[in-house]
């Protein structure tokens, strides 16, 4: 079944490309020590060197090889992307599922809480948490998750509302199957395709938020990240464009990978959603 899913993903227009991009970016980052020519802390080279054979992406203001820093920074950016999305899914998914399945006063309360977090702009939440609690890496992840979970919650809520009325769920209830079974074996597997798409998009949002934080200088200074590289590069934009362009491209590629993957999953489970509009004939 899993192999069949993978095959179908690659049969979509862009899903396969998205997966390949994500795999490539992940592998490069995880195996950074093998691909990088120097450690992220090495400041031995002359600073502000333009791209050359020795330093394909140039060096930055501290004398670090940009390519190497990029690879190491990828670890934190991707980690934030995956982890924040996962956390958002856990928090938002649980809240949405409870509200959608049990309805009633419980749902009313949970939905209002969701609305509250939803109306606060993501950046504000993150800035608030970071300025209050400092900029440690995992706090950042939590802050980003806090910003995006309402979207997940709404989505899962909608799925549970619809699915819990479907006849196969009613039949399972009539067969006396437990609430746990209904939620985890009947409803959730059918909600997954939509949820996975949202999680992928959340990941790309998380990466962008992190980039924003880093750019504003609010990220953990001890951990290199693409956003932080952008921050460093902005004052040297005219002198050393490579300090900004390459991290920027890395962010774009990662976000693109997640988005294409999301498109691919959408197309897999709902082929007409992404099909070309019907050719109107006469």
């Amino acid at each position, binding site marked *: 079944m899993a192999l069949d899913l993978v095959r179908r993903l690659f049969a979509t227009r862009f899903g396969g490309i998205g997966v390949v991009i994500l795999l490539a970016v992940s592998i490069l980052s995880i195996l950074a020590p093998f691909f990088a020519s120097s450690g992220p802390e090495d400041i031995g080279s002359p600073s502000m060197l333009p791209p050359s054979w020795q330093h394909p992406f140039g060096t930055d203001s501290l004398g670090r090889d940009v390519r190497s820093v990029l690879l190491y920074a990828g670890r934190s950016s991707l980690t934030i992307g995956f982890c924040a999305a996962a956390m958002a899914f856990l928090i938002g998914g649980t809240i949405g599922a409870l509200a959608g399945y049990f309805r009633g006063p419980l749902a009313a309360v949970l939905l209002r809480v969701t609305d509250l977090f939803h109306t606060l702009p993501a950046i504000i939440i993150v800035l608030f948490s970071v300025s209050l609690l400092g900029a440690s890496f995992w706090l950042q992840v939590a802050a980003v998750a806090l910003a995006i979970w309402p979207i997940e919650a709404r989505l899962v809520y909608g799925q549970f509302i619809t699915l819990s009325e*479907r*006849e*196969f769920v*009613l*039949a*399972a*209830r*009539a*067969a*006396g*199957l*437990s609430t746990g*079974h209904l939620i985890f*074996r*009947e409803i959730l*597997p*059918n909600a997954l395709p939509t949820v996975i798409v949202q999680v992928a998009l959340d990941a790309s949002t998380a990466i962008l938020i992190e980039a924003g934080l880093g750019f504003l200088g609010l990220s953990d200074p001890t951990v290199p990240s693409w956003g932080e590289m952008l921050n460093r590069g902005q004052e040297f934009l005219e002198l050393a464009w490579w300090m900004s362009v390459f991290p920027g491209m890395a962010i774009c590629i990662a976000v693109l990978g997640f988005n294409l993957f999301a498109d691919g999953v959408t197309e897999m489970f709902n082929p007409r959603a992404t099909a070309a509009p019907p050719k109107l004939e006469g």
Partner: protein
Amino acid sequence: MSAPILSARAIVKSFGGRSWFGGGSAKRAVDTVDLDVNEGETLAIVGESGSGKSTLARILLGLVAPTSGTVAYQGRPVAEFGAADWAAFRKSVQPVFQDPASSLNPRMRVDTTLSYVLRRHGLATRATMDAEIAGLLASVGLDAAQFRDRYPHQLSGGQQQRIAIARAMAVRPRLIIADEPLSSLDMSVQAQVLDLLVSLKASRNLGLVLISHDLNVVDAISDRVIVMYLGRIVEAGPTRQVLGNPSNDYTRSLLAAKLVADPHVARARRIAMDAAPAAAPISPSNLQGAPQ
């Protein structure tokens, strides 16, 4: 006659009717319904869209709570049920729904679906599961080897409905409540599924509540009929009597509108109607502006 398996008294189900800003009146999908279902009998509930028959079915199945009124199983009100009572109820009263495709979990194989039900009620162990499933599938006319590992989308409509029936039969119920079980199926398949229901009924003394808009089917297999219109029962009684000699205008209009697969009959009826034009048949779908 022994006590009815299932009985309903003064069932009312209303929707809507928020009193927040004084707007919106509540709509009664089911409006004061009484009925009994006896052991081994086939009761048909006939009605068109908006009659409340599906809502009533879900209330009888214990899936939806009525706004007021009581449903009693074997004389005991379900509202008083504890966990053990519900477990017994679930083993006795099972549904078959209209759209077989949506009544099966699209992500679950046939054998998985059946095994959950069997395990829940202790009807099979790991060792006996395969045999039990094979037996169930055989009882609905499907070859286990071929069908056990299929997903719903790999089955035809008729096969899906047979699986749904197998799932209902898995717990060896005393009563099946079938909501338009034939409507989504092709005509040739309808006959097969109907035959299956009839033979299961006969072999296990199964009670059947059949909700259907098809009067021909109702006449073919039911003992008693209830006719519903806009949430109320307008006529009830033995099938021969209700369909052969209806006392209610709505029932008469339903009978007049029945299509028969015979052009001779159709022509004869046309000639008769031209000679004595009847008033337009009453129907909820005809009354735009009637309380919906």
